[in-house]
């Protein structure tokens, strides 16, 4: 509690409040403009925070993140075009409600759902992260190495149908991270005789190039679309209806809680972000509803579910980042970059070693959620004006900003060339259907994996601890099953027999390392998982090893 109070004290300054307000406002606008992602907004904020004290820089970035998560709903509800992939499902009911003449209510429900999701997520972040960090303290180099491998595998497996492309992208990220001097022995690698390459690619320049630069090029690809603004219509006059919105949400509190928990859980899972959470929450709300047929016609349930979940996602991603030092998604990877810029290396001991800084991240997440609520009405007016600016103008200005921002990070011109080459690489990869998220995680996690492998081998050259240590085995097993998951999905549609055994076998396999762990709780959990697997197997046997008929 004293650390939380300490964090509040460092953030209760005029400077911090102004920075957070500006951050939330910037995030709201960036999130509201289709084509500009939250990751892009956060990564472009990084250069500004370079000279700030760590707690202020991180509070600003967290504010941009929170603003960006909520900004997408404005565009989605008013124009039918989701501002970010996290708000795709919001348009399903938000836009029809706005077209029925209730845009103020739709926005109000969206804003308050976002607020509730953010608060639930912030509370879970503050309570779960320290607990998870305690578990993280049990991790040895073998476990860390396997955790990174699991994070990369699951990110690739969640990148759609092209898993092979996701895995190649992840490997490419790992390989590009090896360019320059290696951290363990200090030997030059893949420098091809260039002094500039000897220091490797700056990680932030790579991120901005891969994500922001390539996205901007994508946005202006079509010459006609580039000249158009988001809205060609006249001034949109909307007043957010707060009271009615709160009443609607209170009537549906169970949807808020369920969707927020879906969001937090999705955020904890490496690689799965808001784009998955909002669809998942919408789908669950529809399945649980007494009137599923009304979904898509402009009902409150259809706005509450995606908006609560997408705001809760980042809390989940931050839990893993703060507790284990492993970024759950691209935005968390950028946050990791921000921490590294401020000489803070997140690890299980981070929360105990830097309690004020760690708690300032939790507290700023909490405060930014309140700022988001207060700023929505005001930013709505600015959003309407920004939507009148043609896309090519916005993209060009941001490209100019990228140049100055990337140079400012280290005052090295080579970083600008890195930005250009990785911008081209990102653009080409997008065009050929290669997902960028695994590559970014590969770049971010590459040296963590190598350093832990080096440490593990320095302790013993024996490779058996990778399968004899419970946590390492646990991550290895879930990495294998997550790698098989896309194949399982594809084959289940074709009703292949082996898919009947996927879930029971996964449960049996996961229970093994859990049984190997010390204490009472984990072996008990292993028994439950084993029992569930056995139940699933028994059900399949009862059905004569046939597939369940679709409901």
């Amino acid at each position, binding site marked *: 509690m004293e650390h939380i109070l300490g964090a509040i004290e460092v953030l209760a300054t005029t400077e911090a409040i102004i920075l957070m307000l500006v951050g939330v406002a910037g995030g709201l606008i960036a999130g509201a403009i289709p084509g500009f992602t939250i990751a892009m907004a956060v990564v472009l904020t990084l250069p*500004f925070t*370079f*000279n700030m004290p760590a707690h202020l820089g991180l509070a600003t970035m967290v504010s941009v993140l929170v603003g960006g998560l909520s900004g997408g709903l404005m565009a989605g509800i008013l124009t039918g075009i989701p501002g970010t992939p996290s708000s795709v499902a919001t348009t399903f009911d938000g836009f029809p409600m706005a077209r029925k003449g209730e845009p103020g209510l739709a926005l109000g429900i969206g804003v308050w759902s976002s607020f509730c999701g953010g608060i639930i997520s912030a509370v879970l972040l503050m309570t779960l992260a320290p607990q998870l960090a305690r578990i993280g303290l049990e991790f040895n180099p073998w476990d860390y190495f396997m955790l990174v491998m699991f994070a990369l595998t699951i990110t690739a497996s969640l990148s759609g149908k*092209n898993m*092979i*492309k996701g*895995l*190649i992208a992840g*490997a490419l990220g790992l*390989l590009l991270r*090896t360019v320059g001097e*290696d951290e*363990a*022995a*200090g*030997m*030059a*690698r*893949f420098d*091809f005789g260039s002094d500039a390459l000897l220091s490797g690619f700056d990680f932030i320049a790579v991120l901005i190039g891969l994500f922001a630069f390539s996205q*901007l*090029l*994508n946005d*202006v*690809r*079509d*010459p006609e679309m*580039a*000249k158009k603004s988001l809205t060609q219509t006249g001034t949109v006059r909307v007043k957010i209806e707060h009271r009615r919105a709160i009443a609607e949400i209170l009537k549906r509190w169970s949807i808020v809680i369920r969707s927020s928990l879906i969001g937090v859980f999705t955020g904890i899972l490496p690689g799965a972000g808001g784009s998955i959470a909002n669809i998942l929450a919408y789908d669950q709300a529809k399945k649980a509803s007494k009137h599923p047929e009304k979904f898509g016609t402009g009902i409150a349930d259809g706005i509450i579910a995606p908006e609560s979940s997408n705001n809760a996602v980042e809390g989940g991603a931050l839990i893993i980042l703060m507790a284990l030092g492993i970024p759950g998604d691209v935005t968390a990877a950028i946050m990791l970059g921000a921490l590294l810029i401020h000489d803070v290396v997140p690890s299980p001991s981070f929360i105990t070693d830097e309690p004020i800084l760690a708690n300032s991240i939790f507290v700023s997440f909490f405060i930014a959620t309140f700022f988001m609520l207060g700023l929505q009405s005001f930013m709505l007016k600015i959003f309407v004006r920004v939507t009148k600016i*043609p896309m*090519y*103008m916005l*993209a*060009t*200005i941001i*490209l*100019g*900003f990228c*140049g*100055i921002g990337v*140079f*400012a990070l280290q*005052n090295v*011109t080579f970083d*600008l*060339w890195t930005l*250009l080459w990785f*911008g*081209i690489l990102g*653009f080409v990869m997008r*065009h*050929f*259907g290669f997902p960028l998220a695994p590559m970014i995680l590969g770049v971010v996690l590459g040296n963590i*994996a*190598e350093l832990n*492998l*080096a440490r593990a*081998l*320095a302790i013993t050259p024996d490779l058996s601890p990778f399968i004899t240590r419970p946590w390492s085995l646990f991550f290895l097993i879930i990495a294998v099953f997550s790698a098989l998951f896309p194949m399982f999905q*594809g084959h289940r549609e074709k009703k292949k027999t082996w898919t009947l055994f996927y879930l029971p076998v996964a449960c049996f396999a996961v229970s093994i390392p859990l049984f190997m762990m010390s204490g009472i709780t984990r072996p008990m959990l292993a028994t439950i998982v084993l029992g569930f697997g056995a139940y699933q197997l028994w059900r399949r046997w009862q059905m004569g090893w046939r597939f369940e008929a679709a409901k």
Partner: protein
Amino acid sequence: MERLNRDAVIAIVLLLFCGVFFWSSFEIRTPDYGVLKPSTWPRVIIGVMSFLSLIYLVQSIRGVKEVATAGKSDRDPGIRSWISYWRNPLWCFGLFFAYLALLPVLGMLIDGIVFVFVLMGVLGGWDGKKPMIHGAIAVIAIGFMWSVFTFGLGVLLPPGMFLGYF
């Protein structure tokens, strides 16, 4: 079929890329200390990536649907059509390249303004009052950013030959 061939070509390019990196990994010196050689980890990654690229190649040749990039291109075949289709990104790359090449001469402020002004003209057109509007936007936007970093954050941005002279 065109898509399938394209995937196969990408797979071959990836295999060549792996080959170059694998060849280059022999130039990595091995120190007398440490258990993990500096070349081991990159070689493991290259090995995995080569294996994945090989699977990708086999899948593209065998015509696995999932591998082929979704969606059919909306442009006609031919180099002119290709350039016309990719006109805007090509301009962005080219102008950013020129921006970087001219940075030591013009400096961050002037170079940035010129880059934004020219790129806006190329993407948005030069007709009517547009050059004036683009010019004003370029000066205000880049001037503001340059001021924030130079005076607000104390970052020393490249002054170039002209501003550096003063």
